[in-house]
């Protein structure tokens, strides 16, 4: 963990492009994984996530 933090801090100082790519990929990846996991939990619990009627 300590090494990972040091590596991220160093990368932020030395290579901004690599750090920017790492940021976007990490955040998108975590978003997709957590989003899909909760969808699965909702499915198991039987909470429907289908289309809803549009109140216009």
């Amino acid at each position: 963990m300590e090494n990972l933090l040091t590596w991220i801090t160093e990368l932020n100082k030395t290579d901004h492009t690599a750090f920017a790519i790492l940021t976007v990929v990490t955040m998108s990846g975590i978003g997709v994984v957590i989003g899909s996991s909760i969808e699965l939990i909702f499915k198991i619990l039987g909470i429907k996530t289908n289309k809803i009627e549009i109140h216009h």
Partner: protein
Amino acid sequence: MEIYLPIAGVEIMAWQLVLLGLTVGIIGGFFGVGGAFMVTPALNVFGFPMAYAIGTDMAHIAGKSIVATMKHRKLGNVDIRLGLIMVIFTAIGIEGGATLIMYLERIGRVGPIVRITYMVLLFGLGTYMLQEYFKLNSAGKSQGKDIKDAGVSSLAQKMHNLKLWPMIQLKTSGLTVSLWVVGGVAMFTGFLAGFLGVGGGFIRMPSLIYLIGCPTTIAVGTDLFEVMISGAYGAFSYAMKARVELVAAVVMLLGAAVGAQFGTTATKYVKGLIIRLYFSVTMLLSGVSVIFKHISAGYKSEYEPMLMKWVKATTGLQDKIEIKDWIVMNKVAVKAWIATQSAAMQSAYSLEKVWNSYSGYLMLGSACTLSLIIIVKMVQGIAKERKLAEQSRAVGQEA
């Protein structure tokens, strides 16, 4: 658990970041906004320098809005054609707004003008939407009807009457409008976002309702689709400038990704009109928060020029941004210098911090309260849905 964030030079409790992410995730999924207007002042209160607060917030929005958009897409709330057209024209508008900011920066009037525009916008939007809610609610009561959402506004109807070629059909929204109407609205909201230096979700969502005529839930989902794209771009851009505290953004996202799912699910159980009511109250509270920020900036202007002169003289730095960075990273030296100044300057320094914290705590308190209300509404909705399902099953068995 306390974590040290080396990029921003801040120590913070992990639960604070998770809680902030969770509450703003719920609100973002419910309103279809990124929520920067709540996260940035809250992070600032937690000790983040402003530039890092904005960059870290942008990074967490990039992840959170993916979760919320995926969910809204399942609920049928995302008009992709409308969203893609909006993204292109919004980008043009943002460039225009940013150019005006650079001009104002050169003539030295940028801070107060941006804050006053922000206040007018927040109070104007909040008051208009609140007034509309009470008008429709009392009309519904007098007619004995349960009004679920307001219809297409008169302004949107006028927009629909502009039959300028090419007309585009927006099947998800159930609308046919001119491409130039959508483009014009997107450029206008983009210009405001670029001018205010915000993501602009809180401007775009009501614009989709009142200017284009989208139903509330479609406006929420489509706006989030845009936030997802602009958030990824913003995260990349701020990371390129070394202004993202990645560890903090990841910890916040753990809460925000869960919150976004809950907030989005809640839109299934809450009437469009009620979403507008909550949104208007949030806008008004944000307006009060900006007033506090404005007062804080007034105190800052009393000591900052002298402080910058001192930094320039002692460090030899010439660039304004580099000097401000130095001030952020050398808090102890700055405090020692302030202690040697006049009582009036010391007072201005401490009052600036006090009003800044009022602004942050107001947003933090609002976010916690509102997210709790949204969760209660979601749980009530799910319970009601289950009860109805059981009743219909029982009726089916009897038959």
